[in-house]
């Protein structure tokens, strides 16, 4: 029996296909949702889910939440803020005295789910289908697969979340022929997929998304709002976490109510917090984040070649789509009222279970045709990206490229593999590199065919074939994201050495760059707005600009920072006026 698992940023679920239906399995307390939180006690085994949740506010330094945002990430990439180590190294977490990879933390959640299923079913569950955001790249998918393996699963398939949700939606509409969009805004990620349903065949036409956009970001904005309104500055990470948890419950309350009263007794030693927040207030701070989903929706529609008028349904999934503001935005983008028939927290897991049933052969006449979300290519000589498999190609797929030796006797050639949509190689995500082996031959005589295949999990494999000898070899793509134990050790040592890296010099450079951009911009703006500004205004701004120039020359970091922020404040009104003028 293959289990279906939704490994979410905030919550995770597991289930199996039983007597013709996907069924979610609950723990001994009757909960189907397991919070994706792990607490690491000093000596004992980690606690997972609700048990760990209790410790989150008490000992945040021993608790890991939202680990999904760090899966397959390198330091310096979004999601790794606050982690120490050298830029470009794989993300590792320092939890009290332990060093953990994101895969290890995720595997604890998966182990817990495995245990829930085995307790419920009374048999061993060793195979699983695990969901990932559609816009996860190769490394993020591979990391998820690895987490499953560490947890003791044979991972039968990595499946995209919106695609899974579409399966859940379409299971009782197998005779339909329709075009649908799945708008999936979860705890940490956003995906939009456009699908064509046709007599039990689910074809993904296009997919887009952002793996750093979700409920977590909304909570962050609402927490800042509460801090501003209550005039509190959290003094510890405990206080910060209490505020964030309050932000989340406030958001949830305001999904059905217009007003929410917040009470935080003894947040700080002598201070309790009590204030009332309205839905309008949180909508104002959340709108900029939610509006970012618009562009992704338009891009997905463009790639699918589908007009909003041709869509039969827009399906909402993911916990964050409970927010009325999200529903309003979706209705605006697609010009139709979204379909709310799917359970926001459960649809993805149900879809994973359905995919498991397809793979098992228990569910016949249902087929899922998914695509690769990102273009795959290699770096060319001039530093450009040469696309080999374009985005939205059906998977599994393969594409080949022929290579030859540039000089006689050349023994190998190093190739960088990239994922992304930008023209310059450096702007894309470097998936890793591999070496093509050449047998000794004269210049241009070696002939090596390299085959890039993306499997049904969306994970890359590279195969080289010598066309002379016919020999084949699987090339290892060395990804910077895989960590060995020794690498973790050396990283630990390294992070301490570099911890005190000339901070002051770096901050000065950052501010100098800002100043170098600001000064000419001020001049241009003054010129363009010269008729609208008074003599006094111009003189004052010039004074601030002169102070920035002086501060740069003085090489004093603090002085430059202050001068810049004064100039920035003084020119705010110029920016507004420029925008108004452009709109006229």
């Amino acid at each position, binding site marked *: 029996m293959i289990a279906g698992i939704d490994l979410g940023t905030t919550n995770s679920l597991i289930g199996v296909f039983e007597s013709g239906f996907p069924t979610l399995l609950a723990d001994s307390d009757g909960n189907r949702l397991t919070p994706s939180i792990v607490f690491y006690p000093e000596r004992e085994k980690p606690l997972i889910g609700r048990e760990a949740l209790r410790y989150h506010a008490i000992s945040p330094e021993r608790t890991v939440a939202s680990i999904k945002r760090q899966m397959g990430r390198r330091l310096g990439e979004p999601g790794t803020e606050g982690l120490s180590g050298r830029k470009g190294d794989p993300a590792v977490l320092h939890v009290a005295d332990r060093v953990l990879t994101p895969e290890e933390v995720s595997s604890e959640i998966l182990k817990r789910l495995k245990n829930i299923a085995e307790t419920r079913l009374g048999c061993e569950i060793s195979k699983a289908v695990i969901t990932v955001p559609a816009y996860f790249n190769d490394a993020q998918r591979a990391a998820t697969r690895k987490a499953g393996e560490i947890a003791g699963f044979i991972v039968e398939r990595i499946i995209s979340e919106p695609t899974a949700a579409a399966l859940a939606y379409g299971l009782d509409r197998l005779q339909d022929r329709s075009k649908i969009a799945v708008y999936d805004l979860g705890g940490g990620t956003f995906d939009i997929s456009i699908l064509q349903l046709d007599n039990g065949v689910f074809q993904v036409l296009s997919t887009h998304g952002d793996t750093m956009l979700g409920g977590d970001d909304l909570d962050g904005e609402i927490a800042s709002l509460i801090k501003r309104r209550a005039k509190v500055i959290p003094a510890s990470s405990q206080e910060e976490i209490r505020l964030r948890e309050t932000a989340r419950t406030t958001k949830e309350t305001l999904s059905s109510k217009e007003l929410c009263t917040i009470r935080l007794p003894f947040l700080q030693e002598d201070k309790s917090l009590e204030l009332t927040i309205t839905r309008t207030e949180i909508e104002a701070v959340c709108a900029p984040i939610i509006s970012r989903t618009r562009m992704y929706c338009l891009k997905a529609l463009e790639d699918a070649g589908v007009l909003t008028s041709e869509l039969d349904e827009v399906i909402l999934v993911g916990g964050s789509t409970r927010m009325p503001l999200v529903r309003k935005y979706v209705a605006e983008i697609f010009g139709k009222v979204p379909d709310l028939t799917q359970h926001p927290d459960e649809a993805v897991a149900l879809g994973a279970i359905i995919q498991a049933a397809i793979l098992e*052969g228990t569910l016949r006449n249902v*087929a899922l045709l998914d695509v690769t979300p990102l273009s795959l290519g290699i770096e060319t000589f001039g530093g450009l990206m040469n696309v080999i498999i374009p985005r939205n190609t059906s998977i599994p797929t393969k594409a080949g490229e022929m290579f030859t030796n540039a000089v006689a006797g050349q023994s190998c050639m190093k190739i960088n593999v990239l994922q992304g949509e930008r023209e310059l190689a450096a702007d894309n995500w470097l998936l890793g590199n591999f070496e093509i082996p050449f047998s000794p031959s004269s210049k241009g005589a070696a002939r090596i065919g390299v085959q890039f295949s993306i499997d049904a999990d969306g994970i890359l494999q590279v195969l080289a074939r010598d066309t002379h000898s016919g020999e084949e070899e699987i090339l290892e793509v060395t990804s910077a994201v895989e960590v060995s134990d020794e690498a973790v050790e050396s990283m630990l040592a390294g992070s301490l050495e570099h911890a005190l890296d000339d901070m002051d010099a770096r901050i000065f450079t950052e501010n100098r760059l800002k100043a170098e951009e600001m000064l000419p911009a001020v001049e241009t703006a003054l010129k363009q707005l010269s008729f609208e500004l008074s003599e006094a205004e111009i003189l004052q701004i010039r004074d601030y600009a002169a102070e920035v120039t002086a501060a740069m020359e003085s090489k004093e970091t603090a002085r430059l920072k202050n001068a810049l922020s004064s100039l920035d404040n003084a020119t705010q009104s110029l920016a507004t006026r420029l925008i108004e003028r452009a709109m006229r």
Partner: protein
Amino acid sequence: MPDPFSLLGLVRRPLIPEEMIGNAYRQKAGTLHPDQPGGDAGAFRELAEAAATLKDPSRRLRALLENPAHSSARIPPEASDLFLKVAWILQYSDRLSLQYTTSYTSLSKALLRAPAQSLLLELNSTLLQLQTWRAALDQELELLDLGWPSHDQVGVLGLADSFAYAVRWAAQLRERELALQEIFS
């Protein structure tokens, strides 16, 4: 590479409605996908490639010819003005987007509004011109389909090239349109 028309069970013609290709693809893919009992990864990939070939008018025309010569890679003379405009818009909009994303201050971002706005107008008028050209090509394709199978090899290749440019430029412009709109959001 096997013949894409026969793989999908479609008649060899210049004009095939996109929906028909999609339907034929899904019907066959539903049984050929490797997850299905008796499915096959290699056959599935060939089918997917065949559908992609037939959906693209340029590649479909080439697939119709017995011996398609290599593309001349020359810009069709009727589109040379359009080409210069498209190239300029692509370059300029990429520069604006880059400036926008690398700006530190709201003032320098605000300064980019006016040029982005006028570029967007230029882009939209070019897209319209491109649509007019595309409509003319579609008409030519229809004529070719009416007279099929009689055709002139050089003419078909020329039409295939024109389609390739018209499709690519439109996609590139629409992509830049979205990028420029991002500056306003």
